[in-house]
């Protein structure tokens, strides 16, 4: 495989005695859109700031396009960045904001003006050049900030939670716009977010981070369907966790609420009587109305949430409760509250998570 465009090599960062990034290795390909996803304090922003050059790694190196930039000052890195707080220059109008990087790079005026016009068109705000930042809405300001970051043709784009300050509707439309622009320009982009839906919807690959470590690095499909760690599984998406007791380790049989079922993914290290946690996505569980899968469990409907195209049922299985997602069917109403139901799961959809 070719050398990655951005290579982060055993990078650590500590603030005084507090180690916030603990030896992270990552490699991003050219033109890739990668999200750093994790709860606050997981080190994702620190990694982004180290790529930008605002923080110096305590150890390790950052290599872009084969060149070590670890000790390069931020103003020589040729990287574009968009901040959560927009950070447009209040004293400059939109055109001056977008043209700032070009002016610094001493791009001649006619060329600069043409580029500004081009960027204004790209972000869908032609004719807004003379306006000042305070005259724009949050979403418009962030689009200008994006144009400003892209105008000097940086070799990489960093997005530091750019959508967090916006309201829900704008957030969705702007993230689609960002993704479309990124695809059009083919620019390598690192996006920091704590919103898993955001990360899943726009990324080529996602880095799931927790407490300064990388928990998993993969495509949204892999992260969601084959979480590598308990953290990755619980942080991304909704996950059902049910307690079970190993009944017969050799035959991979476990007991859930007294009902014995076979779990193909039961680790060989399990011993009879062990308490284990079984996890599965809500959409992997369905009501046993027609076709049965390898596991069938009896339960009681505890809650019915009608979400439109999807109906989420909470089904009680003794001490456990699991969420079951079924598509809305116009001909079949959902089972009523307190009714007895059977749920069915494919054994291969169940993950046995260690801690």
């Amino acid at each position: 495989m070719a050398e990655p465009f951005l290579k982060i090599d055993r990078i650590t960062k500590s603030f005084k005695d507090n180690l916030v990034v603990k030896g992270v290795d990552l490699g991003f390909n050219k033109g890739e859109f990668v999200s750093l996803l994790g709860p606050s304090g997981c080190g994702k922003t620190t990694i982004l700031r180290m790529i930008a050059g605002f923080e110096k790694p305590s150890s390790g190196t950052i290599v872009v396009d084969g060149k070590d930039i670890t000790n390069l000052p931020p103003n020589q890195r040729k990287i574009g960045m968009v901040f959560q707080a927009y950070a447009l220059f209040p004293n400059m109008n939109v055109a001056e904001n977008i043209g700032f990087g070009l002016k610094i790079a001493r791009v001649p005026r006619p060329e600069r003006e043409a580029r500004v016009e081009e960027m204004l068109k790209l972000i869908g705000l032609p004719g807004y050049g003379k306006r000042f930042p305070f005259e724009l809405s949050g979403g418009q300001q962030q689009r200008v900030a994006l144009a400003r970051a892209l105008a000097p043709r940086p070799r990489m784009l960093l997005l530091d939670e750019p959508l967090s300050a916006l309201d829900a509707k704008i957030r969705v439309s702007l993230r689609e716009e960002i993704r479309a622009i990124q695809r059009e320009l083919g620019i390598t982009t690192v996006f920091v977010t704590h919103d898993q839906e955001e990360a899943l919807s726009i990324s080529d690959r996602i880095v799931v981070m927790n407490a300064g470590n990388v928990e998993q690095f993969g495509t949204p499909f892999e992260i969601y369907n084959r979480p590598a760690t308990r953290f990755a599984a619980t942080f991304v998406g909704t996950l059902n966790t049910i307690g079970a007791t190993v009944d017969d380790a050799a035959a991979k049989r476990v007991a859930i609420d007294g009902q014995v079922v076979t779990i193909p993914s039961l680790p060989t290290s399990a011993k009879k009587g062990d308490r284990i946690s079984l996890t599965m996505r809500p959409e992997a569980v369905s009501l046993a109305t027609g076709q049965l899968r390898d596991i069938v469990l009896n339960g009681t409907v505890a809650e019915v949430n009608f979400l439109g195209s999807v109906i989420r049922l909470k089904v009680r299985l003794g001490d456990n409760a699991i969420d079951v997602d079924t598509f809305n069917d116009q001909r079949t109403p959902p089972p009523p509250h307190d009714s007895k139901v059977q749920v069915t799961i494919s054994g291969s959809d169940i993950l046995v998570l260690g801690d």
Partner: protein
Amino acid sequence: MSRTGLIATGIACAIFALMLLALYLYNHQGILVILVAAIGIAGLALIVIGLMKQKVDGEPTGKIWSWLAFALGVLYFLLPLLATFEFSVKIRREGYTFDAYSLVFADGRFQASFVYSLVIGVAAIVVGILLVVPAAYYVRLRAPHLRPIIEFVTLLPLIIPPIILVFGYIRMYNSSSILPLTNSNLGTDALLTLAYVALALPYMYRAVDTGLRTIDVQTLTEAATIMGANQVTILARVIFPNIIVAVLSGAFLTLAIVVGEFTIASLLNRQVFGVYMQNVGANRAFEPAALAVVSFVITWGAMGMIQLLTRFAPKTAPRNT
């Protein structure tokens, strides 16, 4: 203006008119009658308008006392000024004239000392800005833990009396010192400028620091840095234009201080406006009053400029933090 505000202002005007009337009975200056009539009628009109105005529901009646207290406060400050002004135009027995002002303005020493004060003031402002803006910016950006220390240091000129300061300077920079600034005129001018920078430091630093507080210094700096700008460019093109109003208010405060300063300039033997005022005051009667009014107008002009400038402050977008 609210109902009570109108009535209280009217009452204040009426009191003021009565005082002017008393002054007229004392010196029989015709112009005073016109002033009494004008201000008295205006006051009565305000009271009548106030009384006719519909009482707004829920408007506290106690407000009239606060307005009255405010009006009395204004009178307390304005009356001495008015008395000085009245005295300054009384140079001729025949009636009020501006002869004292003409005499003062025609005096070559007035022009020289005033221009000199302005030049030193502008120099102090430039040096102050070059010193304070980068320092306050650096403290906010990189060394916030130093802020209490810096604030204390900038307050020192308020604690140390100018007389002590100037004796210290003279001791440090006299003709037999390592840096004999007082040996030459230019050196003494530089010393005076630096002394004024120190004197204005508390005001300049606070004004700039307040200006920096209104912008997101760190993010703006980072945004400019990542686009290739260096520290000097960031200060000149991003930070400074956004705090220009705060800087100018610091500048006008500096100017107001410099124009009235006496102690340091006198002991450094520089003919500034304050020293000239003292000289005239020791030898003349009416001209010092005229000078006092002039210097007051300058100071108030500077303050008015600060107020005016805040209207042109660059508007920052509401920040979501």
